[in-house]
């Protein structure tokens, strides 16, 4: 048995849709468990009062990254079959900045807005509507944006490949960076709480 299971043909496309639903349920479940149905909690990240976003995101990345690495190293997973989104550096940088601004204005990201809407928050639903509008605007403007959208392609490239460093070294670097960020986050939260007199 080898992973990724779908790429080895263990089941067909129809069944993969069923699995998509199940995986999505798990995704939404843990997002809500963390409290990401609340725009206030999400936005608090950017005022240093509640660093849950950073903690959850980086813990998730660590978990998956370590899992993928070790499963590949022992030969269970065929890493070359795993999808890697091609990098288009400048559009992704600009898109990221725009997304960040949208995040702090709206209080959600696409995934968390689903969770928020599902738990009854009207602002989450309005945010969802906003996403659709934003995509529509992008689509209509696409003929003008297409050049920029496809600029600075770097192909499918990972950090180890870019920096010329072994994969495992980057894994360690990410772990250390994340744990360092967690320590800083805990410290920051305490300071903000003390300052607020909470």
């Amino acid at each position, binding site marked *: 048995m080898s992973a990724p299971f779908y*790429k080895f043909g263990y089941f067909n496309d129809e069944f993969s849709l069923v699995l998509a639903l199940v995986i999505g349920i798990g995704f939404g479940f843990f997002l809500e468990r963390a409290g990401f149905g609340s725009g206030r909690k999400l936005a608090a990240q950017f005022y240093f009062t509640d660093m849950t976003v950073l903690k959850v995101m980086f813990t998730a990345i660590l978990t998956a990254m370590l899992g993928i690495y070790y499963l*590949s190293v022992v030969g269970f997973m065929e*890493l070359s079959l795993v999808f890697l989104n091609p990098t288009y550096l400048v559009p992704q940088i600009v898109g990221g900045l725009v997304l960040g601004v949208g995040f702090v204005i709206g209080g959600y990201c696409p995934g968390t807005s689903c969770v928020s809407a599902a738990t009854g928050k009207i602002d989450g639903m309005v945010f969802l509507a906003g996403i659709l509008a934003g995509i529509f605007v992008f689509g209509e403007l696409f003929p003008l944006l297409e050049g920029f959208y496809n600029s600075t392609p770097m192909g499918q490239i990972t950090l180890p490949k870019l920096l010329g460093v072994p994969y495992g070294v980057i894994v360690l670097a990410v*772990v250390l960076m994340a*744990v360092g960020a967690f320590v800083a986050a805990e410290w920051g939260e305490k300071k903000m709480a003390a300052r607020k007199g909470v």
Partner: protein
Amino acid sequence: MPFRWSSLSLNRRLALLAIVLGAVAVFAGDPYGGTSTRVSAKELAVIVGSEVDHVSSGELADWIIQGRVDFRLLDLRNEEAFREYHIPQAELVPMEGLLDHGLQRNEKIVLYSDGGIHSAQAWFLLKAKGYNGVYILRGGLEEWKDAVLFPRLAPNATPQEAAQFERKAQVAKFFGGSVQTGNAPEATAQKVEMPKLAAPAPSAAVPSAGGTKKKKEGC
């Protein structure tokens, strides 16, 4: 200060576990596994012995005539040979580009080359990489020429064989070949002109819709 796992909070334990795993990762090796592959020798021996993965020229001809598009036909020769003649519906794939060609592990793939050596080698390569639906055209293009394109009726054929041969003649015509007469196959082979493929293969566009429909994997 003595180190006690039990005295650590949950968060500290998680952090420690992550750091240890990260540190080990530096020495654990390359997750891409290089270019090595794993094969089950016994399993392969059984498959090779039973010849379940052979496809005869006649069968392949029938599939093409029936318009079946549930398989991919791969030509492993070079571009020049491909341009001169290739079996309809075939895609040119050089050996080096085989693994990058976007083949699915659960689709039916038929390989052919001039004789059968390259297709056999490619078969082994794909099998080792986990492709489950790989078949070899038995006898390669050589047999395709003899059996499909230029069938020959033996002079001492029985009436039964002659009747069967009628069908072969029709198949040959379908593919632009012709029935051969006489007893000098070598001489004939030199003069034989390969049928020109006038129109593009009837289902040239279909393989992309059927098997390799662009499955978006973005987000």
